[in-house]
C-alpha cells in the first residue's frame, strides 16, 4: 500500500489534532487537577502512559475500519501492507512520544519508558469492537495508580528492572500486532458488526455513519434477543392524545421488557449523581497527603447539602452537578422522537402533542431518578457519620431538584428549535448545549434561592412547558417526517 493511500486512510492532521486535544484534557489536565500531580509529573505520565494509549487508539481506528469492510479480503496483499504501514506509524509516534518525554526531567530509565510506550501504543489494537468508552475507563482505572499510593511502588519497579519492562512492553506489542493482523483474525473481522474510526466521525460526529452503525448493531442485538416483549392489547386506538401517546410508547419501548426500560431510565439518571460523588471520594481517599476518611467525606456531603456556595469541596460538587446532568434527562426525553412514525394516521399537531406527553412522562422518570439518587446519597452519608436525621437536610437537597424539570423542558425546547442547524447534532453542539444548560441551571438556582424563588417557580415551569410544546409543534408542522431527528436517532440506542 503506497504511503499516500495509507495517509488518506489515516488522515494524519486529524489524528494529531485529536490526539493532542485528548492528551491535553484526559492526560495533563485530569492528572494535574484531579490527581494532584505536579505539572511536570502530569506531562511526563501523559507522554509515557496516557498519551500512547490515546495515540495508539487513534492509529488503530483506521486499521480496524479498513479491515471491517467487506472489500478488504478481496484486495491482494492488503493485510500485510496495512501491517507494514501501521508499524511505520507506530515507530513515528513512539519516536515523537519519547522525544517529548525526554524533554521532561524524570526518574524513569529510558528502557522502561520504551517498554511502556510500546505497550501503550499497541494495546488499543485489541479493542476490535471499538467500544468508545473503553479507553476512558482504562484511564480512569490507571490514574489512581499513577497519582496515589501505588505510584511509589510502580516507580521503584521501573527503576529496579527497566529491562523487564522493556521486554514485557515489546512482547505485548508483538503479540497485539501479530494477533490483529493475523490471517485468521482478518478473515473473520469483515463479517462482524460495523465499525468506524473517530477520524471518520470527527469533527461533527457525522450522524449518518453513526446511524448506520447503530442500525447494524441493533439488528444483531434484536435478532439475538430472547427476552419477552410487551403485548399490544388495544383493539382500536381512538383519537385522544393519551391513547396515541401510549401507541408511541409501545413503538418506542415495546421491544424491551418492562424491567429494563422505565426502571432503567430511573437508574441511568441516578447513576451520574452517584458517580460524581464517588470520583472525588476516590481521589480524596487515596490522595497523597490529603487523605480524607469516609466519615469526613460524608460530613462534607451533609455540609454541602446545607450550604449555598458552588463547588468548594468534593461533597458539594455532587449537588451542583445538577444543571450539567440535566442534559441526560433531556436526551432521554427527546429520544422519544426517534420512533419511526410508520405513518401513524395522525395530523402533525396531534403527533407533536402525543410525543410531548410521552416526553413529559420520560422526563418525570428521569427527574425521579435524580431525586432518588440524592436521597440515597444523603441517607448513606447520614448513616456513616451517625448524625441524627434532620429532615431539613432532605428538604434542602430536594429543593435543588425543583429546577430540574424547568431546565429539562427548556432543554427540549432548545433541541427542537435548533434542529435545523445540523452542527447542533455534533459534539460541538453538545458542548454548547451543556454550557447553556449549565448557565441556565446556575441562574435558576440563584433565583430560586431567594425568597422570590417560591413565587416564580410554578409560573416558570408552566412557561417552559409551553415553550417546549410550541417548539415541538412547530418542528413537526414543517418537518420531513421521513427523516429522524439526527441527534435523537443517535441517542435512542438499543431501545427502538
Amino acid at each position: 500500500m503506497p504511503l499516500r493511500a495509507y495517509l488518506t486512510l489515516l488522515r494524519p492532521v486529524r489524528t494529531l489534532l485529536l490526539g493532542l486535544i485528548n492528551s491535553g484534557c484526559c492526560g495533563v489536565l485530569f492528572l494535574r487537577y484531579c490527581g494532584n500531580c505536579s505539572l511536570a509529573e502530569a506531562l511526563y505520565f501523559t507522554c509515557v502512559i496516557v498519551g500512547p494509549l490515546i495515540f495508539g487508539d487513534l492509529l488503530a481506528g483506521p486499521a480496524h475500519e479498513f479491515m471491517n469492510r467487506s472489500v478488504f479480503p478481496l484486495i491482494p496483499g492488503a493485510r500485510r501492507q496495512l501491517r507494514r504501514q501501521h508499524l511505520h506509524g507506530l515507530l513515528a509516534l513512539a519516536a515523537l512520544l519519547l522525544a517529548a518525554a525526554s524533554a521532561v526531567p524524570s526518574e524513569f530509565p529510558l528502557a522502561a519508558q520504551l517498554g511502556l510506550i510500546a505497550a501503550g501504543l499497541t494495546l488499543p489494537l485489541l479493542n476490535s469492537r471499538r467500544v468508545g468508552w473503553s479507553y476512558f475507563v482504562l484511564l480512569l482505572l490507571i490514574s489512581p495508580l499513577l497519582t496515589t499510593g501505588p505510584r511509589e511502588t510502580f516507580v521503584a519497579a521501573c527503576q529496579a528492572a527497566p529491562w523487564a519492562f522493556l521486554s514485557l512492553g515489546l512482547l505485548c506489542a508483538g503479540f497485539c500486532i501479530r494477533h490483529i493482523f493475523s490471517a485468521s483474525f482478518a478473515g473473520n473481522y469483515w463479517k462482524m458488526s460495523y465499525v468506524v474510526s473517530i477520524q471518520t466521525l470527527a469533527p461533527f460526529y457525522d450522524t449518518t455513519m453513526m446511524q448506520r452503525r447503530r442500525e447494524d448493531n441493533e439488528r444483531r442485538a434484536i435478532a439475538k434477543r430472547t427476552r419477552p416483549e410487551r403485548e399490544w392489547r388495544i383493539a382500536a386506538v381512538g383519537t385522544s392524545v393519551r391513547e396515541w401517546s401510549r401507541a408511541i410508547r409501545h413503538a418506542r419501548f415495546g421491544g424491551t421488557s418492562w424491567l429494563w426500560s422505565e426502571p432503567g431510565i430511573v437508574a441511568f439518571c441516578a447513576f451520574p449523581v452517584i458517580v460524581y460523588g464517588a470520583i472525588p471520594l476516590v481521589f480524596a481517599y487515596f490522595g497523597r497527603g490529603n487523605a480524607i476518611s469516609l466519615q469526613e467525606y460524608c460530613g462534607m456531603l451533609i455540609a454541602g447539602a446545607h450550604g449555598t456556595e458552588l463547588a468548594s469541596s468534593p461533597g458539594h460538587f455532587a449537588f451542583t452537578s445538577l444543571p450539567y446532568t440535566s442534559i441526560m434527562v433531556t436526551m432521554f426525553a427527546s429520544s422519544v422522537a426517534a420512533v419511526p412514525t410508520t405513518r401513524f394516521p395522525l395530523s402533525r399537531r396531534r403527533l407533536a402533542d402525543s410525543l410531548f406527553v410521552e416526553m413529559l412522562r420520560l422526563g418525570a422518570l428521569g427527574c425521579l431518578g435524580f431525586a432518588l439518587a440524592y436521597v440515597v446519597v444523603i441517607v448513606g452519608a447520614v448513616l456513616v457519620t451517625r448524625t441524627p436525621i434532620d429532615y431539613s437536610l432532605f428538604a434542602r437537597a430536594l429543593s435543588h431538584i425543583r429546577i430540574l424539570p424547568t431546565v429539562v423542558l427548556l432543554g427540549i425546547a432548545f433541541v427542537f428549535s435548533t434542529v435545523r442547524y445540523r452542527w447542533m447534532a455534533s459534539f460541538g453542539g453538545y458542548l454548547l448545549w451543556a454550557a447553556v444548560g449549565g448557565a441556565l441551571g446556575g441562574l435558576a438556582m440563584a433565583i430560586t434561592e431567594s425568597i422570590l424563588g417560591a413565587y416564580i417557580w410554578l409560573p416558570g415551569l408552566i412557561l417552559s412547558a409551553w415553550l417546549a410544546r410550541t417548539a415541538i409543534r412547530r418542528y413537526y408542522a414543517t418537518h420531513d417526517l421521513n427523516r429522524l431527528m439526527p441527534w435523537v436517532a443517535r441517542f435512542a440506542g438499543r431501545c427502538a
Partner: protein
Amino acid sequence: MPSPALAPAPTAPAADTADASPVVLRSITQRFGKHTALSDVSLALPAGRIIGLLGRNGAGKTTLLHIAAGLLPPTSGACTTLGTPSGKLDTPQLTRLGLVQQEGRYLEWMTVRQHLDFNASFYPSWDRDLEKRLLEALELDPKRKIVQLSPGDRQKVGILLGTCHRPALLLLDEPISSLDPIVRRRLLDFLLELLRDDGTTVVISSHILNDVEKIVDWVVALEAGELVENSPFDLLQESYAEWTLTSAAGALPPSFAEPFVLQQQSNGHQAVLRVRTTDTEAAARLAAAHRAELRTRPLNLDEMFPLLTDQRRRRS
C-alpha cells in the same frame, strides 16, 4: 417549435376534474439543498384508476409520492390530497390513504403479526380477511421478526401495512422489485381487485415496466424533476409506433425532418422510424411523399420509455 402532431406539454388540471381528483399538485417545486428534485410540477390524478408513475432513477418519483402522502412539505407550491392540503392531513384522510415506501422503516423488534395488529388498531377499516389472503398470497410467515427479514420480505411487510385497511388512495413506491415473478403476479391481481371492489386510486411507481404495463391505464412520467407525460395509457399506445419504410423507387433521404419522428435509422433503401403522432393520415402521407411502402408496428412500454423521458430535452 412543436408541430400540432406532437403532444402538447402537460398543463394544469381543469377546474371541474380537480375537485374529484385524489391528488392535486399545483406548481410543486422541491429542493434539497442545491439539488432540485421536482420543478414546477402541476397535475391532477384521475380517480379510480391505476396510474403508473414512470421515470428514471432520480427523476423525482419518490419525492412526488412523499409530498402527496404529506410526509414532505414542498419547498413551494401546494398539494391537495383527498381534498385536504397535504400539510394538514388528519386522521379521517390518513385512514383512507395507504403508502408503501421503497425503504420503509418499521418497528424492527416486532414480528410481522405484532406489527400488523399494532397498525390494525389505528385503522377502523382494517380488513382482516384481506390481510389473511394477502399474507398467503405473498407467502410471508407472520411469526418472523421484521429485523430478520430479507429485503424482499420487508417489501411485503410494507405492502401489507399499506394495503390492508382498504385505502381510497394507495401509493406504491417500487413495491415489486424484490418479489419473485409468481408473487408479483399475485400482488398485481390484488391491486386489480382493490380497484374493482372499492374504486381505489392506485399510483404505482416501478422500473419493471413489463409488470406495470399489465395493469395501468394512466401514465404519469417524470424526467429530471419535470412532468413530461400525463395521459391515458391507451392514448400513448395509439400515438407511438414504429414505421418501417421500404423504398419502391429510388433511395430514401438519409434523415427525416418531420417533428413527430423521434428516432430514425435509414440506410437509403429502408428506414425504421419511431414516431409519436395522433394524426391517422400521417403515415399514408409520408409513404406517398417518399413513394415507399410503409408498415407500422405498435411499441410496448419498454420501447416507449426512452422516447417518453426524452421529451423534455426535445421540447426545450
